[in-house]
Every structure is written in structure tokens, then in C-alpha cells.
């Protein structure tokens, strides 16, 4: 009798063991599934992020580039006067550099396609008390030098080069000699160019226009893109395909 009871108990125990083993396997399967889905979601999000910030390839021919009396530079095919994208940028601002790397090609292409008029407003946003004025001085030197470059493709080449060579915010950069050399690399042939940069001939005019622009445009910071006068959300500005779509929609 005692033996049978013991066997029965052992059978029960074995059953229970098997049950527990099944439960364990089920648990592991669920955990693995959830983990795989979670890791997959992170991977997909990562891929999507990388895709959405993929820049366009710039076409070779730019739309004509001209300079207005207020110091702004306009890039548009003849006769194209809307929609208008206003670009507010500071050569010393790191986020402007990112915008340049991400979305500049889109704006260049759209302008070359005759779908938009782009107006570049170069401003200086850094106050004198930041890093003892180093940042502000960099910004002003670069902006003043850019004004010495005649409007045209050379201006755009110089503009792009400035962002490429952007110094850290707390270090002195955009040295006068470098600015002159980059201008010559960009194809500036004007004999007065070097003197213009060295004397910082346009620094005062730049600062005056910059203050006026910052007042009038009421922007929170740089970079800011405006499409037909309304600020473009950063999520659109920094997403080349979204930016293209927004400009195309504004043309309708």
C-alpha cells in the first residue's frame, strides 16, 4: 500500500516537473519573442532615422545668385519669385552647419529646377559675452568676408566652404589669411577681394543688417527656415524629402 502511494506521489511529482518544464519553455519563448521585437523596433527606427536625413545629390548647375541691397543673397531662376524660402544662418553656428550638410542640396536643386526662390540672410547670433567674444568675432569675420565675394557661383562655393571649415565655438577660427585663400579657391578674381577681407570692410554693415534682420524676422535662433514667411518646423527643415515636399506643396 505504502509503495503504491509513493509511486503515485512520484508520478504526480514527475507530471508536475514536466508541467513546470513546459511552462519554462513557454516563458523563454515569450521573452525571446518580445526581446526580438524590441530589438527589431530599435533597428528599424535607427534605419529610418538614417534614411530620413539622407541628403539629395546636388545638381551641377546652380540657379543664378544675386545680392540685394540689404545684403541678402538670392538664389532663383529668372522670373521665379514664389514660393520663397528664407534661410537665416550664422557661419559659426553648428546647427546651421548640420542644416547645410543635410538640406542645402535640396534647396539648391529646387532653385535650379525653378521651383523656389531662396533668400540667404547671414546673421550673427552670438553675444559678446560668450567665450569672451571669440564666437561672435568668428561669426562676424566670416560674414564680412562673404560680403566681399561677388554674387554668383563663387559666393555659394565660399559659403559652403565656410561651413565646412567651421571652428569650434570656443576657439578662434576663420582666420583672415584662410578666408582670403578660400575665396581664391572659390574662384574670386576681384583684385580688391583680399583687401576687403583684411580690412573687414563690410563688418559694420553686416552687423547692422544682422540686428535689423533678427529684429524684423523674430527668429528664436539659427538656423531658421521660413517658407512664404512662416517658420518651417525643424523636423521638416532637417528632413530633406519632407522639406522638398513642403516647398512643392507651397507652390500649389
Amino acid at each position, binding site marked *: 500500500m505504502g509503495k503504491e502511494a509513493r509511486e503515485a506521489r512520484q508520478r504526480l511529482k514527475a507530471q508536475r516537473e514536466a508541467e513546470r518544464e513546459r*511552462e*519554462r519553455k*513557454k*516563458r523563454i519563448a*515569450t*521573452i525571446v519573442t*518580445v*526581446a526580438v521585437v*524590441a530589438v527589431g*523596433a*530599435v533597428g*528599424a*527606427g*535607427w534605419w*529610418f*532615422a*538614417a534614411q*530620413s*536625413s539622407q541628403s539629395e545629390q546636388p545638381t551641377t548647375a546652380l540657379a543664378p545668385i544675386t545680392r540685394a541691397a540689404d545684403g541678402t543673397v538670392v538664389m532663383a531662376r529668372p522670373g521665379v519669385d514664389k514660393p520663397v524660402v528664407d534661410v537665416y544662418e550664422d557661419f559659426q*553656428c*553648428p*546647427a546651421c552647419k*548640420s*542644416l547645410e*550638410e*543635410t538640406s542645402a542640396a535640396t534647396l539648391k536643386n529646387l532653385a535650379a529646377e525653378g521651383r523656389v526662390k531662396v533668400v540667404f540672410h547671414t546673421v550673427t*547670433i552670438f*553675444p559678446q559675452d*560668450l*567665450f569672451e567674444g571669440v564666437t561672435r568675432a568668428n561669426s562676424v569675420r566670416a560674414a564680412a568676408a562673404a560680403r566681399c565675394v561677388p554674387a554668383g557661383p563663387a559666393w555659394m562655393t565660399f559659403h559652403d566652404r565656410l561651413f565646412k571649415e567651421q571652428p569650434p565655438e*570656443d576657439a578662434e577660427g576663420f582666420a583672415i589669411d584662410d578666408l582670403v585663400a578660400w575665396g581664391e579657391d572659390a574662384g574670386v578674381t576681384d583684385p580688391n577681394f583680399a583687401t576687403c577681407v583684411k580690412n573687414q570692410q563690410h563688418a559694420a554693415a553686416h552687423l547692422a543688417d544682422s540686428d535689423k534682420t533678427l529684429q524684423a524676422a523674430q527668429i*528664436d*535662433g539659427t538656423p531658421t527656415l521660413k517658407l512664404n514667411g512662416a517658420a518651417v518646423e*525643424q*523636423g521638416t527643415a*532637417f*528632413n530633406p524629402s519632407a522639406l522638398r515636399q513642403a516647398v512643392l506643396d507651397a507652390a500649389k
Partner: protein
Amino acid sequence: MRSALPWVTTVSRLILAGVLVIAGWGKIGTPVLSVEAVKAYQLLPDPVATAVGYGLPILEIVVGILLIVGLLTRVAGIASALLMLAFVIGIASVWARGLRIDCGCFGGGGQLAAGEEPSYLIDILRDFGLFALGVIIAWFPPGRFALDSALGLTPGRDSGRHDDDPESDDEELREGEDD
């Protein structure tokens, strides 16, 4: 205390998850700025900073969602505690090196707005508090409203602690739910 603890974990999960999801959401729309914000710390080499800039927002959101629903709660708790610890170290290091940045915690490119002062101390205290919540979540059972319990993913923790106890809590829980 025994009856309050599950609620403590649940509330911790929801707070931490809320912050993570909001922080991730603020960044995920502009991966370029997110990369810029990581670079502003001047801690990681550029390719790594780029990968972190792309990956961190979605990681925060996924970990946040796991915490909300209470799936893989312990892993999510550990992950968020580690994230918060990394943020605390990063911000402290920026502070110590005298850099002037925005932590980029909830989006943006890491640049201070004009006239804005860095808020390192507040950022560090906040992230340290969230780190503590992460530890609570990882340490204790997932609490109320956790899929881990509903799916029976938690007993691994209990059965390891007392083998002779025939999973009484768990069976009660499951029977209660069947009704």
C-alpha cells in the same frame, strides 16, 4: 508596505516611461539635430556620436513602451537606469570641462538659445532621480498592470529564491485572473 510596493513599482515605471517616451519623441523627428546634440558633448568620436544620435531616440521610446506595458520589466529597468547613469556622467563631464551646451535631453541640437544659461545641476538631479526609479524597477517585481505578470514571465524570479515554495503567489494570481 507589502501592499504598497507593487504600486510604487508601477508608478516608477509610468514616470520613467513617460520621461523616456517624451524625450525620445522630441528627438526622433530630427535625427540630424540629435546627432548634433550628441556631438556637443565632445565625448564620442564622430561615427559613434552619429550612431548614438540615430539610435538613442528610438531606444528611449522602445524602453519606455516596455516599461509602460510592463514587458521584460527588469531588463527595461536596467536599461533605463544605465541610460540615466550615462546621461548623468555625460552632463557632469560637460560641466567639469566648462562647456556651455543644452543637454539636448528632450530634443534640439545641443545649442543654448540666445541668452540661455546651462542647467546642468537640474539636469543631473532629474536624471539621477530617474536612475533611482530604474533601480527600483529592476530590483522589485514589476508591480500592478504588468504584462510580465499576466503572461507568467515573472516566476523565474520567485522560484529561484525559494524552491520549496510551490509557487503559491503565482498560482493564486493566475487563478484570480481566470475568474
